[in-house]
């Protein structure tokens, strides 16, 4: 019962769909359990996230975050690595954006600051992934454990920095000063007023995210490095035998992964908050895991999954207004269920589906 026996559309279409359907079905049961109507909840959720311009704007704003963190997890998946540290890498990536913005916002316009912010965030995110990567590559310390530890270290470090060196002088708030115009990305509402995004913070970093998707697709499927990463992920022993350096592959993959996670901070810090503040990552790094699993680690899948999670975040906010029983914690439950069904239980329905398809195919083979 290997995967090869099933038609491609079943492998890449039907099985992921069945897994997701199961996740949402159980989510619906949870809604029933807390005494609300799940269909009504879905209606409010879809209306809240797609029903009007501002809602769409918020959905796309969240989706931008999830594209970055989802890509980060996905790239590591291709090398068989599980980067669970997107949360910390994005947090530290915020430092890179902030340094660029604080240094440049008085003197140059935003489009000059942006490249520096991108480089800064990617560098800081990558730097935070470097030690776990290097330890995994040379010492065999499991990258899952070390990246978890680094999430907590990042959190302590940022709380410390924001309470000391980075704090705005004379302020009690643990945050930096607000950036001037040179450190703010234009909102899409200013660029495309006709879309009516209203006060939604969706900004130009959406395009940075989409560009990253294209680049990652090129990298993974059209370059030598991408081939090495995929080979290493598929069979590390064989890859090493073929002359691929495991240390180099692990470290480079994790640096790319960390850099992508770090770039999430562009959207949050330069695009929306315009200052560095405590806990701005707010779990978006972890959502990347669900997004990458759901998007099957492919950029197109990730964009779709990111939009779906964007809808859940925005629609979920709307939902908690309309149905106070369904707090925003519902999103975390759905996230957990998606990770469970699309990730850990991804093979649960496979035997049944294989049985469903095998007899007819065996029959066809007999006739031929």
């Amino acid at each position: 019962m290997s995967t090869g026996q099933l038609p491609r559309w079943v492998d890449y279409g039907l099985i992921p769909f069945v897994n997701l359907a199961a996740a949402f079905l159980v989510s619906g049961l949870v809604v029933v359990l807390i005494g609300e109507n799940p269909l009504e909840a879905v209606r409010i959720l879809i209306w809240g996230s797609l029903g009007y311009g501002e809602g769409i704007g918020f959905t796309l704003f969240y989706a931008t975050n999830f594209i970055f963190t989802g890509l980060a997890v996905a790239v590591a998946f291709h090398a068989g690595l599980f980067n669970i540290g997107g949360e910390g890498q994005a947090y530290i990536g915020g430092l890179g954006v902030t340094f660029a913005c604080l240094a440049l916002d008085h003197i140059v316009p935003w489009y000059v600051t942006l490249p520096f912010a991108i480089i800064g965030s990617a560098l800081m995110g990558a730097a935070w992934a470097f030690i776990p990567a290097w330890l995994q590559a040379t010492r065999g310390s499991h990258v899952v454990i070390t990246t978890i530890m680094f999430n907590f270290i990042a959190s302590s470090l940022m709380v410390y920095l924001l309470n000391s060196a980075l704090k705005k002088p004379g302020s009690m708030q643990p945050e930096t000063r607000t950036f001037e115009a040179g450190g703010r990305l234009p909102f899409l509402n200013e660029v495309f007023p006709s879309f009516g995004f209203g006060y939604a913070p969706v900004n130009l970093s959406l395009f940075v995210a989409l560009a990253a998707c294209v680049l990652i697709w090129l990298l993974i499927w059209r370059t030598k490095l991408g081939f090495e990463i995929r080979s290493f992920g598929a069979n590390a022993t064989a890859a090493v035998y073929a002359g691929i350096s495991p240390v180099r592959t692990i470290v480079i993959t994790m640096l790319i992964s960390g850099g992508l996670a770090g770039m999430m901070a562009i959207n949050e810090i330069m695009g929306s908050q315009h200052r560095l503040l405590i806990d701005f990552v707010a779990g978006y790094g972890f959502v990347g895991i669900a997004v990458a699993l759901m998007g099957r680690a492919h950029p197109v899948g990730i964009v779709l999954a990111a939009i779906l999670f964007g809808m859940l975040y925005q629609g979920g906010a709307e939902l908690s207004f309309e149905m106070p029983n369904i707090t925003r914690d519902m999103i975390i439950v759905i996230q957990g269920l998606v990770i469970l069904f699309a990730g850990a239980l991804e093979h649960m329905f496979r035997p049944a589906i294989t049985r469903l398809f095998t007899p007819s195919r065996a029959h066809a083979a007999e006739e031929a």
Partner: protein
Amino acid sequence: MFETLILILDSTVRLSTPLLLACLAGLYSERSGVVDIGLEGKMLGAAFGAGAVAYITANAWLGLLAGIGVSVALGLLHGFASISNRGNQIVSGVAINFLAAGLTALLGQTWFRQGGRTPALPEGGRFRDIVWPYAEQLRDVPVIGPLYSELLSGHNILVYAGFIAVPLTWWVLFRTRFGLRLRAVGENPAAVDTAGISVAWLRYRAVIACGILCGFAGAYLSIAQGAGFGVNMTAGKGFIALAALIFAKWRPASAMFACLLFGFLDAVAIRMQGQEVPGIGEIPVQFFQALPYILTVILLAGFIGKAVPPKAAGIPYLKERS
């Protein structure tokens, strides 16, 4: 000075108990070859179950049972995904952490309407501190007095349970047939299978044991140390326990010392808040908070001996290729 030391050690014991219980829980699971990063979620679920039932029934023991029930259920889910369906154990653990975080807050709000918290526990709903005989009379005796009446006496029953669980775990793992098999299945499941012992059933028993201990850990937080469940009250303790497990190189006695060390760091951090250290100045409290994680990374890097996990940890067992 001595008084201060005793006070710090006293809070060390209190702070390390949940870590210790969760760490031993992880020990059973990981020794059997099932990696468990869902300790955090199981503790959180147990804390909620215990808090909710102890509030409703005003009985701490029923609360503890409920906590264990929730935790074992989550453990079985982890087992179903990673043993029966041979799914990725890390992914499953992550899922359990999210499920627990979301469901506890959601159900807490629906049932109790206090922003996800459970209401303050009624009398009887909480494990009380146990005062040892003659603790009051001995209090004024120098050295022995504070040691006996502050450090040893005056903890709740779960604290003592946690420390009794250490030799018990050692005995189960290293002196019983079950323990031998459990360790074997974490190192070489194929050999265990060849001997005619079910790998899956052994691992299921390990995740159930893990669930029970996590249930104790969670219940400790909400109905022994605290007086009710609070949203995300584990606050990363499950991960510190995981770090302690690695730090202890998957051994029960070392696990106790690792948890005591991490608990001590926590106690010192609380104590040192806003205080100057002569010659160094004020040490930021965040440094102490990060220290368990930093130490674990340094250990993992191989600078303090080498932490070698059970050989089959994280690898699903496939009986036959078809």
